[in-house]
């Protein structure tokens, strides 16, 4: 595994997609969703992936999150090819290397905030006390420690997303994978969440991939990519600001 890079050194590639293709067979029709995606993600990147709906964003997200496998092509995570891994290895790798943030938060409704945050640690087989201590610390870090014992239905949208971010980060993953993280939030809360990402990226060299169709969100990422017709390309930074956030599909 890679050690944390020393200051000034060239950043290392932690994720690499080589000619990744994904197609689905619906009866006799085969639909190719991803048509040869190439992408290198470096430690410390804050990268956005934009694109219209139906262009393969979710499929790419599922592959990046190890929830789905490419039909062809290679996917390297920390130098390891994931194509040869079985389900248990993928689960363990997801637990260790990927932190998910979803558009609709996906907190478990019957658990309190800290219990939700502790779930990834639970699957690592940690002792209860350790898991709880780390979960509480992580909640403090995202500024919501005071709500540790609230259940999701007692929290606002922004608070829920902070809990979800704490959950994504508690296991110290290599990559934070956010799928429309601000899609269910108002403009002001979106801004707060994006500032939180920016701060974690700047202060802790958090590597983040944010899938969005909100230009304002994409604008706050240092690297911007666009996916169109199943092909990913580095995009020019958008000039005009003021696009309304959360534009629906």
């Amino acid at each position, binding site marked *: 595994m890679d050690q944390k890079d020393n200051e000034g050194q060239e950043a290392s590639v932690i994720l690499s997609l080589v000619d990744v293709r994904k197609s689905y067979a619906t009866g006799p029709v085969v639909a190719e969703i991803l048509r040869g995606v190439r992408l290198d993600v470096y430690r410390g990147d804050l990268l956005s992936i934009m694109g219209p709906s139906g262009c393969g964003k979710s499929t790419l997200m599922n592959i990046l999150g190890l929830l789905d496998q490419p039909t062809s092509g290679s996917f390297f995570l920390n130098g390891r090819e994931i194509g040869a891994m079985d389900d248990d290895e993928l689960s363990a790798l*997801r*637990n*260790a290397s990927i932190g998910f943030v*979803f558009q609709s938060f996906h907190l478990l409704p*019957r*658990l309190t905030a800290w*219990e939700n945050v502790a779930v990834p640690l639970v*699957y690592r087989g940690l002792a209860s006390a350790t898991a709880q201590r780390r979960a509480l610390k992580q909640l403090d870090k995202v500024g919501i420690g005071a709500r540790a014992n609230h259940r999701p239905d007692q929290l606002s949208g922004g608070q829920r997303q902070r809990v979800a971010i704490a959950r994504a980060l508690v296991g110290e993953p290599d990559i934070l994978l956010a799928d429309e993280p601000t899609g269910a939030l108002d403009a002001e809360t979106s801004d707060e969440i994006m500032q939180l990402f920016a701060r974690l990226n700047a202060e802790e060299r958090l590597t983040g991939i944010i899938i969005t169709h909100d230009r304002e969100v994409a604008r706050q990422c240092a690297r911007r990519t666009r996916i169109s017709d199943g092909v990913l390309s580095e995009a020019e930074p958008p000039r005009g600001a003021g696009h309304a956030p959360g534009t629906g599909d």
Partner: protein
Amino acid sequence: MLALAQANLKEAASSLLAAKQRTLLALVGIAIGIGSVIAMISVGVIARDEALRQFQELGTDILTITFQHSGPAGGLSAVTPDEALGVTRLAAIAAAAPYAVSYAQFALPGREAKDVMLLGATATLPDLNKLKIETGRHISDLDLRRYFCVIGSEVAAALRATGIQRLVGEAIEVAGSVYTIVGVLRRTPKGMRDFDVNHSIIVPLSTAQRVFRQPEIHSITARLSPGTYHVTAELKVGDYFRRISPGIEVRVRSAEHLIEQMHKQMRLFALLLGSVGGISLLVGGIGVMNVMLVSVSERRREIGIRRALGARRMDIQSQFLIESVVLSLAAGVIGVGAGVGVTWAICQFTDWAFRISMLAVGLGVGVASAAGVFFGFYPAYRAARLDPVTALRGS
């Protein structure tokens, strides 16, 4: 404690509590199954012990010989006292107590007449029927044709109720004859005896021959010689009476014979209970499976989230298995409680000695958890095999 185990248990409890109605219905099914099996097993065991105790109280070496209605002419077959006592000449028989029976009323001063059973018996009767004296003495062979009697505890109680304090030496009139009480018997449960001695008055057999309207012998209590196989003795006794009185209908029963029959019945009973319990458990188990299948399909998104956060298939499978075991075990505990309660109630009602059969309790709890694993396996397997991407999308 590992966070995983703790989280699984907590999750199981909270998920089951969240769907109260459904959980309750499945619970009732299993609880009834387990409860009825436990109640039936316990009651069966207690009833058998009770019956065995009654047999063993008399001793398993005791034969009961009775003469039945014989031939188309009807009427009771009977033998004379001498013929009856002749049975002791058989090597298989160590002792015999023939007795004649007459039903009579005896007058109590200033009260309603009381129905009693008059037993004309030999001195061997108390020993072979385990009758114990409270005060006075038993009838003896020396009381030949005397008007002496030994009274049962209920008869004694009726007499005491009229104000008589010292019963021994008192004279009572029964069926037109006056007898002097020489002994009072201790209260004795009827058990396997053919007569209820508490409501009886025992007089010498020789006296009975003079006063009873039908002084013939219809019943004999006999004791096997040590080491004699009861079936052999039953055959020999039958042969003996048929030889001296051709055409007589003899029925010979031994305690061992009855115990054997009872064991056979118990086996049949156990088989029946097993099937009833099995069927109710099957029905309850299908209820559990249904609850778990609904739970899995309602929680597809949760399963997807957990998989995304790093849960392996095994983790998901054990989570749902634990939930179904918790459900079944809760039902099992309720069932055990209900079963023990029902057993207790039946014992109160029948006057049997209540005790909890640990075998039944262990069986109940064990079977409940086994049912949880068995019927929870398929739903848990389905949950574990869900594709994470599909699951995350929810239903």
